[in-house]
């Protein structure tokens, strides 16, 4: 069993990423932001990508949408969506692919609304441009869409600044699912929001997902949130996947020391107060090897004394 064959349910994968490598090419040196990453997402599956800032998770999302700009370059690997090669698409194909096949909600997306157009005008735009509906029909659908995310359709006439952050974020999510894409990419969709609003939005995404049946690529650094929402997840470190399995398995039995550190970074809300350690300052993993199957469906990058470079003085200091 290879990694790309493991998916939730027996469905054909919607998205299949194989050995994706992305480099940022500079004049004097280049950096590998994503290094031979493979994963697949099945129909109706929620796949989580966890990791800290700079680990390459947003770069992957942008590669799938073909949004990478210089100096970033896809240096190797393949991305296929429903059997089509995303990396070989023409600009006209890409135009259809984006939004209709794959939609993306960006980090602090609520600030991506155009401040001088009403919410209604912006949603109507999607339908008239991408679906070719009449204006009247588009307006009717826009109202439906807002109802779907529980915003009063009267808000179609509101400007973005008249809505709260949570409402704007919900409007953006409504716009993302407007054309019923088969894959929705959520890049830290709730980081700028308060916890209460965050949970309501996540619950809404879950409802929408169940109703419309799309797949989700969910990117965040919040492990607790990810385990709650995802079916399967992968943990990234320095451009590589260090562990991938069913979310519940990762939660119950994290195997890679980095995954354990990420888990330990979120103290539980129940049970006794136990000391947690996290990742000491200065601990780095280098030359992370390819994943191997540690348990059925649970893939972990082998780690040993040579894989983790530990700044010993720092470790001693931080452990005290």
């Amino acid at each position, binding site marked *: 069993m290879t990694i790309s064959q493991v998916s939730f349910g027996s469905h054909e994968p919607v998205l299949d990423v194989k050995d994706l490598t992305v480099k940022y090419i500079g004049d004097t040196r280049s950096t590998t932001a994503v290094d031979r990453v493979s994963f697949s997402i099945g129909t109706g599956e929620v796949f989580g990508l966890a990791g800290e800032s700079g680990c390459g998770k947003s770069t992957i999302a942008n590669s799938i949408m073909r949004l990478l700009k210089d100096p970033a370059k896809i240096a190797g690997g393949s991305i296929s969506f429903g059997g089509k090669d995303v990396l070989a698409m023409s600009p006209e194909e890409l135009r259809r692919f984006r939004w209709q096949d794959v939609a993306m909600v960006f980090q602090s997306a609520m600030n991506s609304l155009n401040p001088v157009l009403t919410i209604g005008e912006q949603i109507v735009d999607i339908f008239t441009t991408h679906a070719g509906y009449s204006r009247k029909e588009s307006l009717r659908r826009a109202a439906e869409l807002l109802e779907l995310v529980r915003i009063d359709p009267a808000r179609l006439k509101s400007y973005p600044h008249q809505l709260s952050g949570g409402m704007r974020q919900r409007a953006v999510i409504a716009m993302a699912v407007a054309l019923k894409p088969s894959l929705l990419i959520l890049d830290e969709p709730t980081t700028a929001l308060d916890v209460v609003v965050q949970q309501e939005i996540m619950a809404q995404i879950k409802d929408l997902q169940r109703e419309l049946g799309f797949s989700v690529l969910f990117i965040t650094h919040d492990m607790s949130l990810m385990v709650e929402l995802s079916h399967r997840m992968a943990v990234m470190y320095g451009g590589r996947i260090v562990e991938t399995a069913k979310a519940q398995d990762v939660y119950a039995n994290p195997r890679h020391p980095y995954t354990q550190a990420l888990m330990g970074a979120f103290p539980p809300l129940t049970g006794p107060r136990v000391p947690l350690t996290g990742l000491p300052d200065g601990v780095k993993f280098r030359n992370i090897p390819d994943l191997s199957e540690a348990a059925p469906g649970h893939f972990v990058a082998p780690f040993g004394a040579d894989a983790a470079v530990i700044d010993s003085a*720092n470790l001693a200091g931080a452990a005290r």
Partner: protein
Amino acid sequence: MSHSLTSPAAGSTTSTPALEIRGLGKSFPIGGLFSRRSVRALHGVDLTIGRGEIVALVGESGSGKSTLARCVARLEKPSSGAILIDGVDILKRDRIQASRAFRSQLQMVFQDPFGSLNPAHRIEHFLRRSLAIHGKGGGSEEETRRRLEDLVTTVGLQADMLNSYPHELSGGQRQRVAIARALAVEPQVILADEPTSMLDVSVRIGVLNLMRKLRDEQGISMLYITHDLASARYLADRTAVMFAGELVEEGESLDLLANPAHPYTQLLVSAVPDPARAGSYDPVRRAELRQAVMASTTCAYDGDPNQACSSEEPVRHQVGDPNNRHWVRCHLYRPWAGNDGHALAGEPAQPDLPASNAQEKASA
């Protein structure tokens, strides 16, 4: 007026708390130059931190927790109330601005370790300066040197990092430098405003552990301000919940988060993602809580604790075992309904309900 539920500090040897906030209020004027309108950011906040105690202040953005921190740090002038350190009202003592004596009693650690260290200086400079300004250098160069090395090793850094520049350090290491700088003046109280929210998640817990270690070994009291309930539970002895500029609930952290009594606290607790209770989200219950919270935005506590509880003027009720020093201030609280886990009535209180039998006598 110190509150009988909150004044005895865990493990305190004297009865004077390290930091005591009494009836603190702060309004900001809004509108034009001649406008008389103002927005009330803080209202009647009473909070006590015992010696060697860590108290967390939680709430969402806009609830007033940072305003409270800025008032206590004397970066903002409170409109009313008193701030006592060691029993001395510092607002009266240092009328115009914070004195050096005050700064040596209370130090701050800010949210952003990337913005709080001047990039042009080495780490040694920050610490040496703190020592020099507060006269803790010890007289001789060797003594100062020894103190500097002590400081960096206390916060878990290597002694040779004294020669590093901030850009050479990671976020977690910088926050440790910021903590060392606060420690240099040997304060009684450290005020930490979201000290981990800008750090990479995997090093956050290390900084929390350091704060706990400082409390355990040096007996420093801390006010830990955060929006992260899980970390408050992890670090703090007691947790106070702020809503719309007022404290609505306070208690031992474990007890408060296990048995939240105020609808706002319940809302916050239920919103924290926790895989251990995945699927516990109940939209109907959520809507009820939200409504209760909205209804309680008019809650006000005007000082007289002996009046009957009402939706306008709720009083403090004790929750559960008095040892947990857990109280809530909400007209919806029904102590006799507390066994089923939802100690809240669904609708506002009837005026003739005997709410006063659970009333806490708040005057000391």
